[in-house]
């Protein structure tokens, strides 16, 4: 049973404000992913939880107990580092045994537990090798086994997959998710990769410039982004934005007008719509008239980029559709997919029912 709470944590590096006041609660057993671009404060947040960094102000609570000033070694948390941070002068077995040494277990018992942990991540044949003689994926597993072996209260993972090639990354992602489910240990995972965040997380925290932009399940943040940053950060290809205004129940963007119900008038608005919520209009029922800018077949489907009023709109269309470049094209929007954001502060506008 481990719950973690951060209350009004801030961190300053000199004059730089790395974290503005951040508060969050992590319930027991949750897989929480901190997602954001580099420099957004996600790694700093994790390091403060681990005790490797001291918060400038605020409190860290573990099971309700204040651990803000507890040394890392007394926190019983295990961390997997981006570059694995294996002990280069020790074999796989010794690396995995190492965390048990501090708990005063005898050597035979340490080795027994370490071998069991190594077995769990398929490291059996490599116990006598030094890290330099292991491949990237194997090193990753040693780091995982070293974290697993002592059954910590909390797993911390700092971009653990970013040094692996794409295929291995997908494989290890599945393994990490399964290990977390099996052990049920509360996990905080830092990444800048939205696919990792979406696939692994129970809840995702999106951070930008030292602030939390949104907290929610992967579906919530994907379907209901609360601001422009979250809307534009998630999705590949990302959400399309069209500048315009809302006047008398319609979104006006120059050429076309789209009826939207329930929204108050607003002079500067960005309308967001995901590429999969747009289709090519094959009859007269058109929401927007543009010209084909480029056509990008991906094998799975065709991405059609449409120029409209100086903006480029990406449409995820059926792979059989291959329009000519510069041809006029009519687009149709799934109305439930439309999201509106105030241009001035990026906040989501909601319809009042």
């Amino acid at each position, binding site marked *: 049973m481990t719950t973690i709470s951060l209350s009004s944590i801030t961190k300053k590096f000199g004059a730089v404000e790395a974290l503005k006041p951040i508060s969050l609660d992590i319930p027991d057993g949750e897989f929480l992913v901190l997602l954001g671009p580099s420099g957004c404060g996600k790694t700093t947040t994790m390091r403060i939880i681990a005790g*490797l960094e001291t918060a400038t102000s605020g409190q860290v609570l573990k099971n309700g107990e204040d651990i803000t000033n507890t040394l890392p*070694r007394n926190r019983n948390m295990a961390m997997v580092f*981006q570059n694995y941070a*294996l002990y280069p002068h020790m074999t796989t077995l010794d690396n995995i045994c190492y*965390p048990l040494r*501090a*708990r005063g277990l005898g050597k035979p018992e340490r080795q027994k537990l370490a071998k069991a942990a190594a077995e769990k991540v398929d490291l059996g044949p490599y116990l006598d090798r030094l890290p330099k003689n292991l491949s990237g994926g194997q090193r990753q597993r040693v780091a995982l086994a070293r974290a697993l072996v002592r059954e910590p209260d909390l797993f911390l993972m700092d971009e653990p997959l970013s040094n692996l090639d794409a295929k291995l990354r997908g494989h290890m992602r599945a393994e990490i998710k399964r290990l977390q489910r099996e052990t049920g240990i509360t996990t905080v995972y830092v990444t800048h990769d939205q696919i990792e965040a979406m696939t692994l997380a129970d809840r995702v925290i999106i951070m930008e410039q030292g602030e939390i932009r949104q907290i929610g399940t992967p579906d919530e943040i994907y379907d209901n982004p609360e601001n422009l940053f979250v809307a534009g950060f998630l999705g590949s290809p990302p959400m399309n934005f069209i500048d315009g205004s809302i006047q008398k129940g319609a979104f006006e963007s120059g050429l076309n007008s789209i009826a939207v119900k329930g929204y108050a008038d607003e002079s500067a608005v960005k309308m967001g719509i995901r590429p999969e919520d747009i289709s090519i209009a094959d009859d007269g029922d058109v929401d927007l008239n543009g010209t084909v800018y480029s056509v990008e077949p991906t094998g799975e489907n065709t991405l059609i980029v449409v120029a409209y009023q100086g903006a480029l709109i990406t449409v995820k269309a059926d792979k059989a559709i291959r329009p000519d470049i510069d041809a006029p094209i009519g687009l149709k929007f799934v109305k439930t997919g439309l999201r509106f954001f105030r241009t001035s502060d990026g906040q989501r506008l909601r319809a009042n029912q």
Partner: protein
Amino acid sequence: MKLKSRLYAVWLPRLILYVFAIWCLFPLYWIFLTSLKTPVQALSRPPMFWFEPTLDNFAKVIQNPDIWSYFLSSTIVAGGSSLLGLLIGAPTAYILARYKFRGRGDFGFWLLSTRMTPPVAMLIPFFVMFSWLGLMDTHIGLILAHVMLNLSIVVWLLRGFFAELPVEIEEASALDGDTYFQTFWRITLPLAMPGLISVGILIFLLSWNEFLFALVLGDSAVRTVPIGLYSFIGYQTIAWAELSASATLLIIPIIIFILIFQRHLIRGLTMGAYR
């Protein structure tokens, strides 16, 4: 064209290195040559390169018990001062490399400044201190003096080695339950071993070759190799042949020592280059 570029890239630097190597090795060669001459041949003008070699000088020198005591003194002083230097210097360097504290830069610079005065300027204060403390003419005294002379080198070189070790490894050990000292002892020191060895060799040699402090503070009781060799230079004559034979004998252990640790030495000195 290809020949020409190869000339510049390979043979010219090689030629320069050969000339430099001859320049450095010739004195050693000359000492060895002189050690095989009779006293008369040693003084002949023009110098002799071809002669019937004799081992008389070596025989004479080996039978002189003083030679062995010079060697023993040097080993104690150089060995002791390098071990003590590393013992004090390595933790100091580690703290300076890893921890931020008020006055860190000043402290590092103050250590370095001990190297800025010519050693001879510090000789008189040392003489006075050691007289009071009864450290004159003792191995311990000379060891302490050499540690003082070399500590700044130890700290500044090792600080570089420690700073280059990835900090995540130490953070991992902290999360794995180690105290600060356990991290340093079990993780950092083994990883810094190439650096420790090369710095150790360097200060060993500096201490082995040190003349001035050994002459004044060691006096007649503790005679290290350089002082011992100096005694061959008498009031009226210089026993060149015997001096050369002793010098040759006393270089040999150093050469063996370097050959054993050469691999570490090179690894240590180039550690920053390819990491």
